[in-house]
């Protein structure tokens, strides 16, 4: 009798998970892994998205920071997690395309993962001190040409989109500036404010408060068109330099997540973008919604990778 009972319990234990699928997802908290330290742009985005998804998904999304390796330490970690939809990966161009190509790590590139959704994007800005000696792009270029490596630009690690803006600009304008890589946007801003750099590159979410405090002003934006935030500020494009980058942010998952779960997540994140909390966050961050569902996002990434890989090749960044 006792043996029989034990067998029944065993059979139930083995089959129970199968009985409850697929509707019972998620039944436990979902981990959203971010490859950057807490407090930076990526981390803040992830936490805001997690908060916006609260109430839309029946379980909380919990942010976990695994900084390092230009964001790809998190890729490596997530790729080894089960593809059950309970571990998601923060992804942007730097961590999911550029660094994996540069480091020759195809297993860490976006196509080794399942695409869930592209969420939003921020423009890439170059900021200067309010008393900077150059008022126009022409003056700055003339100065940089006469004084190679004298202009120092603080930004995040090499392989992030920040470094790309500067490297592409150098190539397009035929100038030579000194790029100072940091472990994240926060330390880069500190270095700039502390007088160890003439410019800082990154997103307005990290800059706006310091702009309001009159410690930095926008100089140029790396967008197709002028930004609605500062319409008086020029773009690289209109000055004749093909430097167009945006810091889009998105969600990936380990390869092989059941499609019903991918759909559940994509729908939930799309709905989260309509929440009041998210709208307020996006306005505070000076960012725009760029939602793309799983299939559209995959198509976008194919094109984005082709474009970025070409630049990486031209800049000679690929190692080995």
């Amino acid at each position, binding site marked *: 009798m006792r043996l029989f009972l034990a067998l029944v319990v065993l059979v139930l234990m083995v089959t129970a998970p199968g009985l409850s699928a697929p509707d019972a997802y998620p039944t436990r*908290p979902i981990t959203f892994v971010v490859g950057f*330290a*807490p*407090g930076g742009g990526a*981390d*803040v985005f992830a*936490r*805001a998205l997690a*908060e916006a998804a609260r109430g839309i998904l029946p379980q909380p999304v*919990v*942010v*976990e*920071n*695994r900084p*390092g*390796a*230009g964001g*790809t*330490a998190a890729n*490596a*970690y997530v790729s*080894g*997690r089960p593809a059950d939809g309970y571990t998601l990966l923060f992804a942007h161009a730097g961590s999911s395309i550029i*660094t994996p190509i*540069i*480091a020759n*790590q195809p297993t*860490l590139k976006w196509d080794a993962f399942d695409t869930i959704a592209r969420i939003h994007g921020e423009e890439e800005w170059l900021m200067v001190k309010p008393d900077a000696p150059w008022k126009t792009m022409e003056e700055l270029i003339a100065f940089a040409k006469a004084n190679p*490596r*004298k202009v*120092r630009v603080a930004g995040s*690690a*090499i392989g992030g989109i920040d470094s790309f803006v500067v490297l592409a600009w150098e190539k397009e304008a035929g100038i030579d500036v*000194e*790029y*100072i*890589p*940091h*472990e994240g946007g*926060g*330390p880069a*801003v*500190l*270095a700039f*404010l*502390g*007088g*160890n*750099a003439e410019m800082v590159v990154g997103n307005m979410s990290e800059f*706006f*408060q*310091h702009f*309001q*405090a009159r410690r930095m002003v926008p100089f140029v934006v790396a967008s197709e068109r002028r930004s609605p935030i500062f319409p008086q500020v020029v773009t690289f494009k209109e000055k004749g330099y093909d430097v167009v980058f945006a810091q889009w942010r998105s969600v990936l998952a380990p390869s092989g997540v059941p499609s019903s779960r991918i759909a559940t997540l994509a729908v939930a994140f799309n709905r989260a973008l309509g929440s009041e*909390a998210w709208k*307020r*966050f996006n306005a*505070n961050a000076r960012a725009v919604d760029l939602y793309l569902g799983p299939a559209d996002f995959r198509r976008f990434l194919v094109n984005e990778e082709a474009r970025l890989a070409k630049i990486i090749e031209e800049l000679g*960044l690929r*190692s080995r």
Partner: protein
Amino acid sequence: MGVIEQLLGGFAHALAGPGLLIMAAGVAWGIIGGAIPGISGAVAMALALPYTFSMDAATALVMLAGVWAGANYGGSIPAILMRMPGTPGAAAALLDGYELTRQGKAAKALGISLVCGTFGGLVSIIFLIALVLPLGNLVLAFGSPEIFALALFGLTLIAGLSGKSMLKGLAAGAFGLLLTTVGLDTLTGSLRLTFGRRELLSGVDIISAMIGLFAVSEMFYQLAHPARRETPTIVDARTAFPTLAEFKEVWRATVVGTIVGLIVGVMPGAGATASSFVAYNEARRWSKRPELFGKGSMEGVAGPETANNAVQGGDLVPTLAIGIPGSNSAAIMLAALILHGIVPGPFLMSQHTELVFTLFAGLILVNLLMIPVGVVILRACLLALRLPPPSLVASILAIIFIGTFAADLFVLNPILALIFGVIGYGMRVTGFPPAATVLGLVLGFMVESELRRSLIISHGSWAIFVTHPISAVLLLATLAVLLYPVFLNYRRRRKTPVSPAAAPAGS
């Protein structure tokens, strides 16, 4: 409204409703989380973060502050009892803390750690309240050259950790520095020494290495040397609270630890771990009985333990004044603010004065709560020492492997702990100090990345380290610390009368 009135308002706000209970819960979780290897202060805070969503912003901040303060202390419990740092910041305290445990003074060591840590925490909060606005901009004076100089100063501690042979100490320190070069280099984006292992992309896991070198090697040592295995005399938890005479014994170390913690805390990027090692060394330098260090000195516990708690106030200076976190733990506080719709930045103090002062009051309260909550948990932990040695060793090894695995869920990490256990055992048998290797591990990343970044900033000129005044002062101090023993030696030799027989050979 003056600062005092605002602070009183903050107390009223922090204590409203279940405030005290929430703070106590935060402190208790912090201590327990900190005591589990693999759960650092920042991780314990991140785990508590979801529970703060339903609270108002001030309560959330105050609870997280409690977790933070608690974890600073919690990490020292296994460090002192089992030679196993629960958080990297507790690594310096185990050098003397574990020796005290072996002498049957575990309760006393934990009590000193608790009381002195609380003192350091409280002073740093008062310092924060009084100086956050004027000091906010001072943070900007600490750039790459200054942080490099501090890290270099920290490396002089190798001399103090070396024991008999300076050469072996330097070799062990260099081994630690070498280990930090593993991983993806953020300054060039290239891979170094990862041997194709993804787990090594972000470097050798520091807590696995620390636990291996200290705790696992101790287990091996006890297995090989039965004399070391003897049970320490029964510890009476009631003796934990230090007496007045004992306070007098450690007050110098406590003051030194507080000052070190404050300075290192304000420096962005240099955290509790670096401060505790620097404080350990400074506590010895200023001690009346430096010969006791490494053999069970109360001051050797008080110094680092005060410092790693005093870092809290300093860490919050850049966080509150500029909106850029001073550490991972401070960053979780900022994340809580952002999630409550408050944008941190230079205007936080002026736009959310009431919130900031509630946080100040809460920080004072949680540091006071540390004592009662800490004493309760301390008593429970002391019971572990009553286990028979074989069960104790088995339990410690189980905690080690689960803790190092749980931190990253990499199977490589417990294996690393084991490998470093073997290395640590070998080092101890051959007279190489494992503590010097840990110091190299703690400071290596800072030394290398800040050095290279400084040279980019200066366009390749080494003069940057002397033209920046703070860096120049720190480098001078480093030089003084290195040359002082040489000078002492020289003077001693001059003073000793030269014996006729030795004279020809000596001159």
